């Protein structure tokens, strides 16, 4: 039973990882790409790790997978903030068709 559930979680995780990578290719600028990469790759990888935990249960490998899951959820958004802010400050422009840029207005003041 656990193996079936684990396989389901791993397949769902892989599907979301795939959409994240597709977003990296299809979306126009750094910020939109970071959105796709952060959201999809975080949940996708967590899905895979949780599937591994269901396969192995409370053993050495399973508990390490759970720990990695928690650390990924805590750290992935932080690295996304750092990348987005760093990109903006070092001068990467928003996409041409962006509708509003409040951050630029406030920074240049």
């Amino acid at each position, binding site marked *: 039973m656990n193996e079936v559930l684990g396989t389901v979680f791993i397949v769902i995780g892989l599907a*979301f990882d795939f*959409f*994240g990578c*597709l*977003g990296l290719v*299809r*979306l*126009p*600028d750094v*910020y*939109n790409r*970071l*959105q*796709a990469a*952060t*959201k*999809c790759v*975080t*949940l*996708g990888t967590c899905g895979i790790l949780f599937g591994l935990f269901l396969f192995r249960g*409370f*053993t*050495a490998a399973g*508990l*390490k997978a*759970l*720990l990695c899951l928690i650390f990924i*959820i*805590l750290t992935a*958004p*932080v690295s*996304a*903030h750092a990348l*987005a*802010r760093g990109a*903006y400050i070092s001068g990467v422009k*928003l*996409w041409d*068709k*962006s*509708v*509003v*840029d*409040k*951050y*630029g207005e*406030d920074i240049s003041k």
Partner: protein
Amino acid sequence: MKSKILLFVLGFFVWALLVWPPDIQHIIIGILIAFLVSSITGDLFVKRPSLFTDFKRYLWFGYYVPLFIWECIKANIDVAYRVSHPDVPIKPGIVKVKTNLKSDTGLTFLANSITLTPGTMCVDIDRENGFLYIHWIYVKDKDIEKATKLIVETFENILKRIFE
């Protein structure tokens, strides 16, 4: 002092999970390392240890976790829809929203939650005035008040009860 003890317990717990199944050598080394780390950096860990004794905060945290997972799944389906649609329906922009949270942990959790919820990503925080700059993949409203209502309010009220 309380902060050091909390860090010691947490550090030892994580160590125990990492070396599972535990034996006597690993436990002794874990205690030594957790003691060393918590005696050096323990004071930076929690500023107000009294918050940990308030039971209601744990209940609100238990309510926050499923809500966060649900929003996270919605965000992923949203991204999957946008990138697999032939026209890529996006209208991106950086908007500014207000927040009432003040504490470090609260702001960090708010920014992380916003990053993992549908269509929004936190770019920068202005702590003095309580503003967050949010990159929104499909801007519904440029106005500060309305954007605040749409983006921040889901989590702010809960996080205020947990961390403030």
